[in-house]
C-alpha cells in the first residue's frame, strides 16, 4: 500500500468536494506530473481528468516538455491511466515570452530566469486560459508546492513538503486568479515518496531523471553556443571595482552574471574576486573582493502579490519578510518597501549581489512556508 500520507492530498479537492470538477493536468513526461495525474484520477475518475503536454520549443533540446520522447512518455502514462491526452502547440508564445526575453536579457547583461517566465506566461496564463475555454475548472501541475484556501476564501501558496525539492520560488508570481484554478497534487509528498508512488503504480516515468537546466538549451551546445547563435557575443575586459585597474580579458561579457565567482580569479590581496556589475555597451565586467560582492538590498520591478494587493504597511514603514533569491537559496530576513512602481528589498545582513533579471520571492516571516509575492531584479 501507499507509504504516502495522501489523506492530506489534495486540500484543493476537499475544498471542492461537492463540485464535479474537471481538471486539465499539465504532463511534461516527468515523474512528478505523472503521479499528479494519477492522484487526480484516483480522486476524480478518468472522465474528469485530461492530460495535456505543451509543445513549447521548435528547436532541438535534450528534454523538458519539448522532445517527442517526453511527449511519448506523457501520452503513454495518460494511456495507462485511461485519460484523454492532448498536445498543445504554444511554441510561438514560448518564443515571444521566454526565449526572446532570455536572449535579449543576456545581450543586455541581465540573467533572466526562463522557468519563472514560462510559468508566468505559459503554464499559468496561456494554458490556464486554454483550460478555461475547454471547460476545465482547474489546471494541475507536478510542481512541489502547496496551495490552500484560507477561512476568508483567499488562496495561499505554500512551500512544498519536501524542502529539498520545494518549487514555490518558481511559482511566487501567482496571484488569486491563478491559484483559484490551480492544483499541485504532489506538493504534499517528498520527491522520494513521489518516485515510490510512481513505481508502485508501475508508471513508466518512475525512474526518469529530474530535468536539469534550461529546457530549450542542449547540453552539448550550452548557454554560450545557444546565445552565440542568436546574438553577437563580445569579448571584454575585467576591471577592478575599486581601482579601475584592468585585470585581463573575458571571452564574452554577455555570458557573465553579477555575483559570479568562477573564472574571476584572485585579487592582489590573494582573495577571490566576484562580479559586481556587467556593462555590455562598454564591454566591462567589474569585479571586487568578497565584501564588494555583497549588497544591502535590491530593487525589484514586475512586483506581484499572492494576495493581489501589497501587504498593509508596504508603502509606509515597509514590511518585514523573508527573501529567497534563487531556486534553492536560503531565505534571509529583509524589509520590503514600495519604491515608485517597484519595490526595494533591504536585507538585514548584506547578501551576495543578485543579477538583474533574477527573481526574488518573499515569504511571510511568521509563516515561513507562505509565499507573499515576487519581483524581478532591476
Amino acid at each position: 500500500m501507499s507509504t504516502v500520507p495522501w489523506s492530506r492530498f489534495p486540500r484543493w479537492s476537499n475544498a471542492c468536494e461537492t463540485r464535479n470538477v474537471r481538471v486539465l493536468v499539465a504532463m511534461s513526461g516527468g515523474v512528478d506530473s505523472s503521479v499528479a495525474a494519477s492522484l487526480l484520477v484516483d480522486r476524480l475518475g478518468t472522465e474528469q481528468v485530461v492530460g495535456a503536454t505543451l509543445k513549447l520549443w521548435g528547436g532541438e533540446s535534450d528534454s523538458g516538455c519539448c522532445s517527442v520522447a517526453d511527449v511519448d512518455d506523457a501520452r503513454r502514462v495518460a494511456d495507462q491511466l485511461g485519460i484523454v491526452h492532448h498536445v498543445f502547440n504554444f511554441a510561438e508564445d514560448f518564443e515571444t515570452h521566454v526565449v526572446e526575453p532570455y536572449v535579449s536579457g543576456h545581450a543586455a547583461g541581465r540573467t533572466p530566469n526562463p522557468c519563472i517566465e514560462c510559468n508566468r506566461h505559459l503554464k499559468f496564463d496561456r494554458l490556464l486560459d486554454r483550460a478555461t475555454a475547454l471547460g476545465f475548472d482547474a489546471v494541475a501541475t507536478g510542481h512541489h508546492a502547496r496551495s490552500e484556501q484560507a477561512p476568508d476564501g483567499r488562496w495561499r501558496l505554500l512551500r512544498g513538503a519536501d524542502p529539498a525539492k520545494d518549487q514555490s520560488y518558481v511559482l511566487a508570481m501567482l496571484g488569486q486568479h491563478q491559484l483559484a484554478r490551480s492544483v499541485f497534487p504532489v506538493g504534499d509528498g517528498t520527491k522520494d515518496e513521489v518516485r515510490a508512488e510512481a513505481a508502485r503504480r508501475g508508471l513508466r516515468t518512475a525512474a526518469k531523471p529530474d530535468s536539469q537546466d534550461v529546457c530549450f538549451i542542449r547540453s552539448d551546445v550550452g548557454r554560450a553556443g545557444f546565445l552565440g547563435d542568436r546574438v553577437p557575443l563580445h569579448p571584454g575586459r575585467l576591471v577592478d571595482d575599486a581601482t579601475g585597474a584592468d585585470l585581463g580579458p573575458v571571452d564574452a561579457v554577455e555570458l557573465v552574471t553579477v555575483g559570479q565567482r568562477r573564472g574571476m580569479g584572485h585579487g592582489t590581496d590573494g582573495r577571490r574576486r566576484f562580479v559586481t556589475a556587467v556593462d555590455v555597451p562598454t564591454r566591462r565586467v567589474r569585479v571586487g573582493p568578497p565584501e564588494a560582492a555583497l549588497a544591502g538590498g535590491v530593487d525589484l520591478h514586475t512586483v506581484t502579490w499572492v494576495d493581489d494587493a501589497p501587504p498593509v504597511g508596504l508603502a509606509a514603514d515597509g514590511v518585514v519578510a523573508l527573501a529567497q533569491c534563487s531556486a534553492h537559496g536560503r531565505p534571509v530576513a529583509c524589509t520590503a518597501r514600495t519604491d515608485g512602481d517597484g519595490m526595494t528589498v533591504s536585507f538585514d545582513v548584506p547578501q551576495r549581489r543578485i543579477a538583474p533579471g533574477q527573481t526574488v520571492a518573499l515569504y511571510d516571516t511568521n509563516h515561513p512556508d507562505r509565499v507573499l509575492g515576487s519581483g524581478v531584479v532591476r
Partner: protein
Amino acid sequence: MTGSRAYFDHAATSPLRPEAFEAMLPFWTGEFGNPSGAHVESRRARIALDDARDQVAELLGVGPGDIVLTSGGTEADDLAVQGGWEAVLATDPATDPGAGAGPPVVLCAAMEHHAVLEACAALARRTGAELRHIASDADGRVDLDALADACDPGVRLVSVMTVNNELGTIQPIDAVAEVVARRSPGAVFHTDAVQAVPWLDVAALTATAHLVSISGHKFGGPKGTGALALRHGATVRPRIAGGGQERGRRSGTPNVAGAVGMAAALAATVSERDATVARVAGLRDRLADGLAARVAGLVESGDRADRVAGILHLRVAGVEAEAMVVLLDEAGIAVSAGAACSSGAVEPSHVLASMGLDPETSRSGIRFSLGVATTEDDVDRALEQVPPVVERLRN
C-alpha cells in the same frame, strides 16, 4: 457516421473499403508466398501482385512497368524527388546548364505536403542543390507568375501537388507542366496526387507530369501502401538498395496483400467516382452553407469551383483551431487543424502562410474532410455542434 461519432478527417485517412478488405483476406490467411520465388506459392503471389499492378497502372494511365509500388505516399514522394533528381542528373549530364552557372535547382510549391517539402530540403542539403519555393495566390493555388519567374534552365526537378491537402484546391497541373517545359526543358515534373484520387480523374489530370505519387489509405486502401507512376520516359534511381524488386527501383519483398488491397480500393473508387463526387459535393455544400448561415465570421478558403468535393477548410475569426478540435472531439466530431507533427501538436500551417495569411489567421484554420463514408447524419451533427462550440470559444 461511425457509431455515435461523425468523422470529418478523410484527408488524414479514410476507413478501409470493404472491397479492399475482401480482396486482401486470402493474403492474410492461406496465400503467403513471396512473389520472387520459383514455386507454386510464389507464382500465386506473383500473379496477385502483377494483377494489382496492372490495375493501378491502368487507372493511372501508365503501363504496368511504369508503376513502382511503395510503402505509401511519403515514400513515393521521396523516391520521385530524390530518386528522380539522381536520375535526371545522371541521364542528362551533357545538357547540365548548371555547370559554371551555380548549382542545379530543385523547385517546389511552398504549399506542398511535408513529404515533398522535406524531401526537397534533404536533397538540397545532401547535394548542394539550390531549393526554391513557389508561393500560393490568395485562393490557395500555386502562383504561375512566380513559377515562371523561378523556372530557368538550371531547374532540374519541379514538384507541384495535384490537390492541396489542407484546402482541397486543385492545382493547374497542365499550366505548370507547360511553364516547366518551356522555361526549364531539362526538368522532370513530379506531382503529388495523394489527395486527388478520390475526387478527380488522376490519369487525365496528371497526364502532362513525369512522376505521380498516390497513397492507398487516402482512398480506402490499407495504410502502408502507395505507388509512384512514371511517364514520358522518366526514371528514378532507387532509394532503397537490396534485392532489386520493382525493376530495381525499390528493393524489399513486396507487400502483396497491401498491393491487392490498394488496387481493389482504387478500382472501386474510380468506378464510383462520379456518383461519389456528386453526393459528397452536395454534403459539402450543405455543411459549408449551413455553417456560414449559423456562424458569423466564417471564411471558406479557396474558390469552391476550384476545389475537390471532399475538403472544406474554414477560417473561424477569433477562434483557435487547436481548442476547437478538442471541443468538437468531445462533441463526437473528428476534424483537424493544420498539419499534425510527430508529437501530435498542431503545427502552424505552412499552406496558409504560403497564401500570405498572418499567423493569427492561420491558427484559426480548421479542416472538415469528407469521404465515401460521410452521411447526411454526419453533416446534421456538425451543423448542430459547431455553432455552440465556436460561440463558447469566442466568449
